[in-house]
């Protein structure tokens, strides 16, 4: 099984993944929401040409036409964070070019003509930016970007103006959540220009204690400064989380281990399980693994489970559409199988 998520990255006990995304637009074409179908097709062709027909490791990239893909496959890509839900709207032809190891995804005709995205495990925003930068420079050889010396890269939405960069990291913060200290963290981040949101779940409550931090400002700072800001704040959050985890354990090791093992117990034995419950339990087990309490499961396996329990990916594994009830059963089957239990 390929994918960046089976690699272990730095600080992986707290940081699941890092992502850098660049927004770019062609000169001489309106932005996607004002484009004609023909223009949109032309843009898709030009990007395809710039990447797949040149020597930029063509065998490593796959072209995915959003107009031709079926909804479940598209949703599966969204669940993998390879494309955004916005790309799936069918107002104009859109596409994505994705590397086989799923580290790189280039979206065409999302909100901007181009969204170049790089995903790395753990906290590696600098590496993700390096790769994005490289791909951007390569694309730029064949594409004239909309750019002004005053504003930088011109984007559809003013919130992306300038560098067009969004640097984000996905963090697992069970101790900060459990102790309630996460509120203070959210406030502090807001004041420092860092946005925080829960990744799964509809409200501000984050499912599975998973949060994403990202920069809010894209103009006035260099890309390196932005990357460093998010990385530094990430590191501070990591330290706080680790300290709190150690403290929680110290205060009552038996209760701590009990919670972790009970969750593992349910995951290993349930016959029916919802995705909300799965997220919650996986978070507990992950904490146990991170702290060395649970020794025979590795984080890569948990990442894999976290991905395949989601609706579209789950249905792809069983190769047919499933009703919500069927999904809950198959999910439980999948989890037990991945954990090596019959």
């Amino acid at each position: 099984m390929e994918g960046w998520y089976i690699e272990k990255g730095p600080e992986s006990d707290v940081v699941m993944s890092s992502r850098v995304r660049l927004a770019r637009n062609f000169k001489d074409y309106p932005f996607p929401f004002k484009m004609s179908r023909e223009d949109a097709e032309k843009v898709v062709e030009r990007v395809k040409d710039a990447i797949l027909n040149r020597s930029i490791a063509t065998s490593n990239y796959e072209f995915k036409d959003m107009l031709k893909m079926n909804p479940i496959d598209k949703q599966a890509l969204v669940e993998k964070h390879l494309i955004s839900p916005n790309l799936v709207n069918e107002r104009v032809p859109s596409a994505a070019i994705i590397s086989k190891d799923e580290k790189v995804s280039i979206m065409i005709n999302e909100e901007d003509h181009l969204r170049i995205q790089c995903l790395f495990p753990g906290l590696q925003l600098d590496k993700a930016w390096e790769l994005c930068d490289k791909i951007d420079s390569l694309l730029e050889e064949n594409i004239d970007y909309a750019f002004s010396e005053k504003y930088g890269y011109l984007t559809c939405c003013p919130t992306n103006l300038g560098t067009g960069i969004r640097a984000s990291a996905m963090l697992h913060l069970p101790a900060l959540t459990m102790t309630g200290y996460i509120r203070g963290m959210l406030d502090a981040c807001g004041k420092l220009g860092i946005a925080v949101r829960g990744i799964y779940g509809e409200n501000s409550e984050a499912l599975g204690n998973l949060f994403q931090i990202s920069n809010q400002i894209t103009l006035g700072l260099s890309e390196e400064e932005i990357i460093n800001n998010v990385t530094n704040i990430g590191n501070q959050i990591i330290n706080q989380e680790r300290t709190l985890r150690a403290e929680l354990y110290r205060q009552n090791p038996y209760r701590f281990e009990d919670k972790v093992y009970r969750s593992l117990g349910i995951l290993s034995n349930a016959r029916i399980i919802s995705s909300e419950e799965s997220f919650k339990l996986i978070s507990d087990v992950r904490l146990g693994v991170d702290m060395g309490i649970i020794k025979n499961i590795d984080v890569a396996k948990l990442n894999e489970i976290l991905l395949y329990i989601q609706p579209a990916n789950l249905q792809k594994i069983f190769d047919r559409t499933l009703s919500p009830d069927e999904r809950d059963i198959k999910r439980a089957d999948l989890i037990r199988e991945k954990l090596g239990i019959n």
Partner: protein
Amino acid sequence: MLCQKCQKRVANIQITQIVNNNKQVIYLCEQCAREEGKFITGSPLSVNDFFSSMIGFPVRTSVGEQQLVCDKCGMSYEEFKKVGKFGCENCYKVYGEKLTPLLKRLHGNLQYHGKLPKKVSEDVKVSREIEYLKEQLNNAVKNEEYEKAAEIRDRIRELEKNSAS
């Protein structure tokens, strides 16, 4: 209370309908309400919806502003104020100045400090070289080094010709 349709999820939406003077109240969960088309969530409030207030202008557009329309994509400043998005790169030229307060609120510093596309950075390099040469030209003329001045002048002309393309 459980949703009256699916009987599974918690009902957190109360819908009151008045049909032919009869009042009906039904309780649905969000999902069923959406499916029934009775609960219009639309797209959630996004930051773009707040832009108009940040631009800091009165709600009614002045006559001068009404005429601000991008000649390339046809998007008007009026429309921008509603959706918070630009139609094309030219829009920035047409009504970009109006946005200074908004951009200040979003980003703080308005001076671009990021990566330069290769083609652009070359232009910047060339224009700086031209300025430098012009200075040299002035000095040469002052010192009555007319031959040197002529050489410099030719170089400047060449650079200007190339960069004008």
